[in-house]
């Protein structure tokens, strides 16, 4: 189970077709920008030399297939992993397409959500929303693949990151849906009354997280990044029951601009208010 390959058919199966409505809305965004940034974030983005262009989003409603799990076997459910990955990738790609339509350099404050609806059996909606930005001095900040960078950093984090001489290159993620074996009767009886480590569980949870993180790192390497900041590790059972868990690892890959950096000295304050 050390196969860390990403779902193979990624770039090919992504549609380049945004709904007509999306094109219409973006075409109307000329002298106006929209943004879900707070005022603080908006002003800091401006201070960092960027201008918000518009709110961009992508979504995909995805039906996840069925995969049989063995009751007593711990294993990755590759079909579900693939589904979760593909669906998010679809949503993110569409968001990037919207950003390209606005001729953006990147997208900040990206949020990834999963919605379940009552009418959609086994289907979930994956949404990506963020604010497309463009550098005011005309220098391109696109990533190695010529695509707008994506990042889930807040305006404050974005500004601070730029001060340190790094630039965001892309939101990278890795996921792994894992089925954790139920304990057999004999095992359970064997450990009754003993508080001992349960090595099978340890190993399963360990491996699942490692897989998710490795995949994320591989994505970052493909972007030629120096590192990943703000990594979050999320565990969700979605609608599969307690023994099937998705481990999602997500963060912003950053690259070093190589320029000389003089970081301002932070000021310490004690706030009495809370």
């Amino acid at each position, binding site marked *: 189970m050390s196969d860390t390959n990403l779902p193979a058919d990624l770039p090919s199966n992504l549609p380049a077709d945004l709904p007509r409505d999306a094109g219409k809305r973006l075409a109307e965004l000329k002298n106006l920008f929209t943004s879900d940034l707070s005022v603080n974030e908006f002003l*800091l983005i401006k*201070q960092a030399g960027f201008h918000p262009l518009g709110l961009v989003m992508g979504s995909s409603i995805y039906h996840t297939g069925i995969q049989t799990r063995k009751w007593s076997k711990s294993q990755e459910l590759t079909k579900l992993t693939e589904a979760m990955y593909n669906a998010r990738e679809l949503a993110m790609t569409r968001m990037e397409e919207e950003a390209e339509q606005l001729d953006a350099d990147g997208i900040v404050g990206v949020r990834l959500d999963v919605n379940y609806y009552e009418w959609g059996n086994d289907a979930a909606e994956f949404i990506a929303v963020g604010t497309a930005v463009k550098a005011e001095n005309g220098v391109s900040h696109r990533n190695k693949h010529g695509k707008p960078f994506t990042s889930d950093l807040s305006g404050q984090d974005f500004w*601070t990151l730029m001060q340190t001489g790094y630039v965001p290159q892309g939101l990278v993620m890795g996921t792994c849906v894992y089925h954790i074996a139920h304990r057999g009767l004999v095992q359970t009886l064997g450990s009754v009354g003993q508080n001992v480590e349960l090595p099978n569980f340890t190993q399963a949870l360990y491996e699942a997280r490692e897989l998710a993180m490795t995949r994320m790192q591989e994505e970052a390497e493909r972007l030629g990044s120096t590192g990943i900041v703000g990594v979050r590790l999320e565990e969700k059972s979605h609608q599969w029951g307690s023994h099937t868990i998705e481990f999602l690892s997500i963060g912003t890959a950053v690259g070093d601009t190589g320029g000389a950096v003089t970081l301002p000295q932070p000021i310490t304050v004690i706030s*009495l*208010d*809370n």
Partner: protein
Amino acid sequence: MADSGIPGGVPPDDERVQQDQVGQRPGEVSETGYEGDLPPEAAERLSSSAWSSGLSVNDFAACRSMGLRPVALVQGFCVMGWSWYGAGSPYMYRPGYGPAMGGGTGGGFGGLGGRLPGTVGGGFGGPFSGNYQGGGGYGAAGGSGSGAGAYGRSRWGSTISSYNCPHYYAGMDHRSFGENFEQRWVSDVWSQGFNTAFARMIEEAEAAGAHGIVGVVHTVSSLIDRSIREFHVYGTAVAVEGAARPPSIWSTYLAGQRLAKLVEAGFTPVSVVASIASVRVWAVCVTQALMAGGYQTGGWSAPTGEVTQISDAQMQVRRLVRDHVKSQIGADTLHGADLAAAWRDIGEGDYELQAVLRGTRVRRVRPADPLPPPKLTVRLV
């Protein structure tokens, strides 16, 4: 209606009140005209040498740095009867109709009947009597044209806006007249309950030798019975070391740092202020039809669009409560206002809207000294 959003507000610690000891009545302390009607237990508790406080540690620290010393957790309590138009209520419209069933709306519509043009009033007696005890009164008062005089709408409310049927149609089920009216009895009873509880809290603070009360919390609950409202106002009484006995005691919902900022900004808290307004909606045919999806018995339909009677009521109830509060604060400022409203279905085409507004009445005692304008900073946590 439990308002406990103020940090530092904790439920009063009743265990500390020794029920079996009889203390002295603090009746003598009253210089402000309040009757000394605190329970003896309160005086006993307040005369204890240990102080209690509902303040958080931060608020406590901020109070100390301002020179305020907490002296006691003080409270005032008042239970009011809250029967709609039941027998014995001063708002009852006519003897013999109460206690009314189903919320007892009879009295209300007796007054309403008086507003009706005599020509259509007669047609109303029948259909409503099934729903409301007071239905008969509705018709009768309407029929006589001026029947409300003796029982005066002013006794239970006053019309704010009225709505007439555009259909020139008077059927049995057809509501050809509607109005929004203020239910004054609600604000009267509520104010009486709140003010009495408040006055008792002030009295407790006086007994404790305080100068002011910070971090006030008030709740209005209905724990015992729906026909009863319990008003509870409590806070931490504070004193200024070495200061003379105050001519009056100030109170505020604020505590700690925010109080310090308020004082630094040139304000002084005067008192906590709270009021309620209640607007009753008696829907005209068009409103009633729109609320039911556009259709009315008889097959006619109303065009969809704004339901002006409801929009009006939503505005009226908020404006009324603001006016009530403004009439209490004079030229002072209401700081940190909190406006909450609730909607209630009483019956078919009969609704009530209530709004409560509360805040701290503050007075400017010195001109504001503007602080430097804000700067952008990024916090590294």
